[in-house]
């Protein structure tokens, strides 16, 4: 039964081996579900969140995975709109990662809101001025687009493809994929931006507040730039990891180098604008509200975070990815991609947690946020869910169109 579902002409590990792997992932996901049920039953008091830290690990992770999932829309944009046909080798994987990131983030969000049964109020009583409304609308629509982009891949399963109707339906979906890629690009651009805007509009929180262009604070554009810079890096990392685990060549090196180069250029561009933004924020805006750069940092939320985000996980990986010799070396390229992703994670962390940690009233105090296991478990489960979907897709669907060809050559 299992072998009948595996794409023709490719080799997969034994079902027993695969089942053991699924059990491991299932156990991690069960741990997350248990924590989730506890949250529903007992309430958010089981988390480390408080009235000072209304946002915490979950929002940080949500923002980070959504940013890193930008590889899907951006690779789609490059492939279908710009016409970089070589990226077709990796577009399926990018879509799967995007789907995982967006659906996973929404599952975690359900835990994070105090009244999950009222989640639909966001559509029923929307405040059109709220950046969060824009985020909710765009994420929902874009998840639908990602589903539409994922479906043709699922329908390409060997057994499903045998059904004539499904075969033609899937073929026709492929034909109009450029339309969805364009829609996805538009939606994803806006909600990546509105996620940044969510913080930039907080004029009561000088750590996060930014002026900007028309109704959009600079964080709107910065979040878009950092997402499209780091998203392709995650796609590369997952691709390499899959190659390592399966001991197969799945994508041509030139394709990964190309994606790494694009990621590098985007990261370099992002770093330039981010450094300008940081300079203006620290030397013009902060003094205008009676604060200095030092006012925003205190251990453990010290200046090391700024250094790690901008230098260690920003400038350094940008230079690495822009240097052909470095990015064409597997280890260095992976290191650069990893640092790039960590930089994005730190950025989302500081905007989420440090914004709230830095006191605004002079007589207020710094507080510390420590997530509980009930917050870590769904986060781990989210990663396990991602691994599960990648594993299932890899095993039963033609995720990598050149797999057969590349492994024959070998």
């Amino acid at each position, binding site marked *: 039964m299992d072998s009948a579902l595996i794409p023709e002409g490719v080799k997969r590990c034994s079902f027993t081996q695969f089942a053991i792997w699924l059990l491991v992932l299932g156990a991690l996901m069960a741990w997350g579900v248990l924590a989730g049920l506890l949250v529903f039953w007992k*309430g*958010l*008091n089981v988390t480390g*969140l*408080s*009235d*000072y*830290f*209304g*946002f915490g690990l979950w929002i940080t992770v949500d923002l980070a995975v959504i940013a890193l999932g930008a590889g899907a829309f951006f690779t789609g944009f490059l492939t279908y709109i710009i016409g970089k046909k070589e990226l077709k080798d990796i577009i399926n994987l990018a879509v799967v990662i995007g789907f995982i990131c967006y659906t996973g983030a929404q599952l975690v969000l359900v835990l*994070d*809101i*105090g*009244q999950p049964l*009222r*989640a639909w*109020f*966001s559509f*029923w*009583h*929307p*405040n059109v*001025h*709220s*950046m*969060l*409304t824009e985020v*909710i609308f765009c994420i929902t629509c874009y998840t639908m687009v990602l589903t539409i982009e994922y479906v043709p891949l699922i329908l390409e399963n060997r057994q499903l493809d045998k059904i004539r109707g499904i075969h033609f339906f899937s073929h026709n979906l492929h034909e109009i994929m450029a339309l969805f890629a364009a829609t996805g690009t538009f939606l994803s651009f806006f909600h990546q931006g509105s996620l940044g805007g*969510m913080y930039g*509009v*907080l*004029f*009561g*929180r*000088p750590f996060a507040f930014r002026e900007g262009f028309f109704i959009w604070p600079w964080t709107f554009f910065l979040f878009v730039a950092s997402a499209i810079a780091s998203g392709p890096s995650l796609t590369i990392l997952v691709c390499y990891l899959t190659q390592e685990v399966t001991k197969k060549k799945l994508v041509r090196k030139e394709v990964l180098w190309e994606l790494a180069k694009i990621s590098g250029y985007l990261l370099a561009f992002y770093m330039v604008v981010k450094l300008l933004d940081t300079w203006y924020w620290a030397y013009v805006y902060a*003094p*205008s*509200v*009676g*604060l*200095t750069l030092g*006012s925003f940092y205190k251990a453990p939320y010290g200046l090391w975070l700024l250094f790690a985000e901008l230098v260690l996980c920003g400038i350094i990986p940008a230079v690495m990815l822009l240097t052909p010799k470095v990015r064409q070396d597997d280890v260095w390229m992976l290191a650069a991609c990893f640092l790039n992703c960590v930089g994005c994670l730190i950025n989302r962390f500081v905007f989420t947690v440090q*914004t*709230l940690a830095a006191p*605004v*009233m*002079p*007589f*207020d105090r710094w*507080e510390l946020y420590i997530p509980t296991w009930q917050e870590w478990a769904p986060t781990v489960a989210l990663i396990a869910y991602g691994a599960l979907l990648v594993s299932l897709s890899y095993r039963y669907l033609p995720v990598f169109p050149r797999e057969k060809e590349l492994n024959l050559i070998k």
Partner: protein
Amino acid sequence: MTEQTTSGIRYGMAIDLDKCTGCMACAVACQQENNVSFREDESDKLRSITWLEMFYLDNGKPYPEHRQAYLPRPCQHCDSAHDSPCTFVCPVNATKRDEENGLVNQIPVRCIGCRYCMAACPYHARYFNWWDTKWPKGMEQMLTPEVSTRPRGVVEKCTMCVHRLQLAMDKAFTEGRKELREGEYVPACVEACPAKAMVFGNLHDKESLVAKLAKSQRAFRLLPKLGTEPKIYYLTSQGWIRKLGDNVM
């Protein structure tokens, strides 16, 4: 009933910190009036619901120069242009500023508990219900009937006892009046202050005491540089307290 309110009203408060003794009668009255839930163990102050929080201030100097003061902090009912920091961000319109009187209200039955408003408020004036609301046996008989209790998972905050405004408007309506008299609508905290340190009224009424106090040389507001335009004015003659009202480089 909307017809009964008059436009151009901006309810606000003046709190004289030189008079405040930090007795916290205001905070207790607020809790009682607004059916604010509590737990047996309230030691976790980051999860304790205190619509009117009392901050302890000191000048950081040793004796004999040591000075201390208390700063009661209700919601500042920010009057910033277009929207208050919190009303601006709520995705479901669960918190709105009533432009007829300037009060920032909360609609708990609509709140989804996303806590974005809490992130937006620099004064920490918003509180999340981390636990189910449970009253000690018999206490539910003592709840204020005009104020609905809030369930677990929603945000709440000082409403400036808006239900008292409704009651005052009802009374004025039955008496054939369109305007409220000064002092006819007063929040519970102001009423309870034994030192008469809190004054409440219409900031747009030049003749009102609160408007006069707000214009006094002793008046200051919290974090004015942020542009939140709070409608709570603090009064003091002590420079070190005024200095704590805003960040100064």
